[in-house]
C-alpha cells in the first residue's frame, strides 16, 4: 500500500507526492496531513507535486482542499513544482486554486514559506531585533 510521507523540517511540513495519486491516497493524505499539522503545530506546509503528471478533477479538488484545510489550521501552504500539463488541465477544469500559494520549485517554495512564517514571528519583537 502506497503512502505519501510527511516530513517535518524545522517548523515546516514537507509533503512530496512521488507516486500516482489515486482517490483513496488523496483522502488518506488529507487525514494524515491535518492530523500532523495539529500534532506538530507546524506553521508552514510545502506540497511538492513535481512528479505528478496526471490530474483529474477529484485530485485537483483534493489539492485545493488540503491547502485550504492547512490554512484553516493556521499553516501557510505552498504548492510547488506543478507541471505545465497539470496546470493547463486544472485551468481547463476551472480549478484555479484561489488562495493557494504556488512556487516553481521546492527551493523557492521554502524561501517563500520561511519569509512568510518569519514575518509572523517577527511582528511583536521587530523593534527589539533592530536594536541588537
Amino acid at each position, binding site marked *: 500500500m502506497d503512502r505519501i510521507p510527511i516530513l517535518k523540517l524545522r517548523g515546516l511540513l514537507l509533503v512530496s507526492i512521488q507516486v500516482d495519486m489515486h482517490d483513496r491516497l488523496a483522502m488518506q493524505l488529507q487525514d494524515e496531513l491535518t492530523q500532523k499539522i495539529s500534532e506538530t503545530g507546524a506553521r508552514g506546509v510545502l506540497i511538492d507535486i513535481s512528479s505528478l503528471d496526471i490530474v483529474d478533477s477529484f485530485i485537483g479538488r483534493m489539492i485545493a482542499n488540503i491547502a485550504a484545510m492547512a490554512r484553516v489550521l493556521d499553516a501557510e501552504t505552498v*504548492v*510547488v*513544482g*506543478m*507541471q*505545465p500539463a*497539470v*496546470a*493547463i488541465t*486544472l*485551468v*481547463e477544469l476551472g480549478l*484555479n*486554486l484561489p488562495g493557494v500559494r*504556488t*512556487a*516553481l*520549485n521546492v527551493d*523557492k*517554495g521554502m524561501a517563500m514559506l520561511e519569509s512568510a512564517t518569519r514575518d509572523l514571528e517577527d511582528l511583536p519583537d521587530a523593534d527589539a531585533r533592530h536594536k541588537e
Partner: protein
Amino acid sequence: MSAATDAVIPRILKTHEAELLEEWLREQLSAFRVGAKIFESELRSQSREFLNLLQQATQGGNVGDVQGPSYGRVRDMLGDISRSRSLQGFSPSETATFVFSLKRPLFARIRKELATDAESLATVTWTATELLDRLGLYTTEVYQKSREEVITRQQQELLELSTPVVKLWDGILALPMIGTLDSARTQVVMESLLQRIVETGADIAIIDITGVPTVDTLTAQHLIKTITAARLMGADCIISGIRPQIAQTIVHLGVDLGAVITKATLADAFRRALDMTGQRERVLKSRA
C-alpha cells in the same frame, strides 16, 4: 472492345513516336509561353519520357486502367512533373495542358490509321480520350495536393514563428504576441510559455499584446487561462501593451483583469518585473 481496337493505341504510340513527339511539342509550345517558365529542352525530355512510359504502360493491353499497376511509372512521372510545376508557379490548367495537348496529335494519328473503319475509329478515340482525361485529372490532383502541402507547412512555420518566448533577464520571460489569437494558437502559446517557465525557472512572465489587433471575450478568456496556469506553477504574469481601444473593449465586455498586473508598455512591465524580483538595484548599478 475487341482486341484489335485495343491494340491500336499502343501501336500508334510505338510506330509514330517521333512524329507524335514533334507535334505534341508544337501543341505545348503554342499553348503557353514556354520560354518564361520552362526551357524547350526540358519540355522535350519530359515529353519524350512520358510518351515512352505511356507506350510501355499500354503495351500490356489494359489501356483504360490508369490506377492499375502497369501505369505506376507513368503516375510517378506525372506526379513529379505536377509537383515541380506547382512549385515553379504554373497554374493548374497549364499543368494539365501537358497531358491534354497530346490529344490533337494522337487523334490525328488514330484518324489516319482507321480512316476506313468508322466504328473502330469512334471506339478508339473514346478510349484515348478517357485515358488522357484521367491522366490529366491525375496531374491536377497531384498539383492541388502539393499546393496544400505548401500551405500546411507555411501555417506550421507561421505558428512557430509567431509565438517566441524570450528571456529578458534572470527570471524574467517575455512573450510578445503578434496577430489574432485563436484557440489553436493560444494553446501553443500557453504550452510554450509554461514549458519555458519550467526550463528557465522564471518567476515572472510578461505577456506583451501590442501586436494583437483585437481582443474579444474568447481572447481575453484565453489570456486569463494562461495567466492562471502560470500562477499555478508559481510564476506571476504581467500584461503589457494594452492599447486604448483594447482597454475600452475589455471594460465594455466586462472582462475581469482585476488580479492581473497590467502595464502600458513592455518597458514599464520590465521595470516592474525587476522590482518584483529585487533586481532593479543591481541593474542600475551595472549601468552606472
